[in-house]
């Protein structure tokens, strides 16, 4: 068929499609203009779109002019991006993900999570114990100025002061914790792309430095204010860093050992699963920042209240991670694909 005849025969269809895409392509616009619409009915759209695809294939095969092919391809692209878009996120889906989807996903990666926990907790405990036995070890980890700063922040002789800070307000520290801790969490995950090495380094470094600070403060007798400070927010904060580490390790592992898949496919899968884990990590760290800024720093609260709230939060976080979503059945290696 000659091109001119082809165009003449199908032009009205294309114009109608273009008109539909202009008028009804955006959900908000479509809702406003639902009444008084006299073009293609919405339910006819997929069939019309498939017809267009066939016409485009025909046009390409018959070698019709590039301008015509380009025009058809544009209509097709607009239709494609409408028919195959990801559904918009909804509040109840987000809530469901947080309550059951995220813990399930964490449990689905239990191997990586345990490895991440070991990389973080082992150096922490080892350094802590080592400093109790040989307090001078702390000065090889931190320089004297830093040590003096830590001691000053948790000085038991100054009971009126807020715990864990010099003079900033709660709100300023809230902002600081969000900026600092969430960035660390995201970086812990992303650096897993360096064959997992970046994540390993971040986890080791954090384990050593947290263990070092805690060990030093305990050794010089500033333990009480320090433990009162960290009891509350440690549960969401430390677990979130471990989970981000686990996601990073999974990504690195998929790069190094993709198994029976193309390496790029393994990476894409690891990336999407990691991104889902990072969404949960983000929520946990924002919650931790809130606790750290507005609760942990209160100095006058009796120690037993602080410790019981801390224990309650640990129970809550661990219970959530271990039990959340159990009613949906056992979690497997390939869990959490849909939400």
């Amino acid at each position, binding site marked *: 068929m000659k091109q001119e005849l082809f165009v003449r025969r199908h032009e009205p269809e294309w114009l109608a499609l273009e008109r539909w895409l202009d008028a009804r392509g955006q959900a908000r616009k479509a809702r406003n203009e639902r009444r008084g619409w006299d073009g293609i009915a919405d339910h006819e759209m997929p069939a019309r779109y498939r017809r267009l695809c066939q016409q485009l294939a025909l046009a390409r095969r018959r070698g019709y002019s590039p*301008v015509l092919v380009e025009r058809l391809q544009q209509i097709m692209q607009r239709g494609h991006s409408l028919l195959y878009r990801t559904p918009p996120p909804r509040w109840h889906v987000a809530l469901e993900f947080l309550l059951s989807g995220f813990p399930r996903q964490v449990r689905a990666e239990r191997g990586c999570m345990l490895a991440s926990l070991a990389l973080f907790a082992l150096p922490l405990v080892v350094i802590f114990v080592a400093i109790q036995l040989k307090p001078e070890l702390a000065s090889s980890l931190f320089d004297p100025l830093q040590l003096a700063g830590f001691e000053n922040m948790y000085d038991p002789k100054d009971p009126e002061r807020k715990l864990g800070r010099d003079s900033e307000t709660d709100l300023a520290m809230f902002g600081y914790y969000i900026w600092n801790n969430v960035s660390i969490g995201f970086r812990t995950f992303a650096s897993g792309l360096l064959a997992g090495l970046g994540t390993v380094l971040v986890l080791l470094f954090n384990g050593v430095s947290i263990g070092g600070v805690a060990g030093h403060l305990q050794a010089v007798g500033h333990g009480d204010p320090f433990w009162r400070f960290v009891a509350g927010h440690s549960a969401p904060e430390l677990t979130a860093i471990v989970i981000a580490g686990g996601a990073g390790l999974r990504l690195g592992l998929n790069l190094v050992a993709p198994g029976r898949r193309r390496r790029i496919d393994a990476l894409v899968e690891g990336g999407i699963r990691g991104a889902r884990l990072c969404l949960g990590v983000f929520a946990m760290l924002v919650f931790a920042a809130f606790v750290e800024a507005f609760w942990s720093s209160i100095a006058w609260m009796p120690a037993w209240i602080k410790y019981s709230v801390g224990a309650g939060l640990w129970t809550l976080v661990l219970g959530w991670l271990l039990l959340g979503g159990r009613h949906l059945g056992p979690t497997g290696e390939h869990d959490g694909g849909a939400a």
Partner: protein
Amino acid sequence: MAVIDGRAAAVPVLDTCREVVTPEGVALRLPAAGPMPRALAWLIDFMLRMAILVAGSMVVGMLGRGSMGPYLILLFSVFWLYPIAFEVLWGGRTPGKRALGLRVIAANGAPVGWLAAFARNLLRVVDMLPFGYALGLLVSFGDPWGRRIGDMVAGTLVVHDSRTPPPATTPPAEPMAAPVVLLPHEQAALVAFAERAPRLTQARQIELAELGSPWLQARGDTAVQRLYGIANGLLGRRDPGPHGSGQHGSEQHGSEQHGSGQHG
């Protein structure tokens, strides 16, 4: 739906178009964007972010230390959430990408989703290594579609936004048959010439048309006119419409009515 786009597989494409075969079995051609326009788009975004932060710090300066917290949250949002939010909510475009006519899409041609946008922007951390996106640049030079590492892992692609093509008309000329037998790709080239030549200079039109002089047996302006005529013949235009575009337009209009009558 049984038509398969045979040409797509047979002819290697010599540009950065990525061909994605959709569920309908038709190849969607996506023109991937290279590092240069993407770097420029990033630069525009960077300046915009800096402007937001400077404005934020001025507010902090006026309100005193108490507003440091909101400022740090603003810093966090500008650093991490700005690209994610824009890419998802604004059709795959940050302001910088919009200025450069770029768009982020999923590798299968669909709009980019929340998770993919989240992943590709988190992984900027790796692309930035060791400084100034050096790793991302290096990788995108090696990739046929100019993707950085974050794009590969998130399964996304940055493409040039397609522009509306000019109306497909050839200049009016008496339709004529070609004096020699033309192969399909030669026919396509002739039609493409006729559609694009009016936007070239006269000299260039003649220069191109005279490539066909040996078999057209004409030179200069006559060769151009003959090529237009042959293109019209190939397209199947019966009505020559020699007196300008007004008549041509009415002819188009008439044919539309004819077409709809045929269908109705």
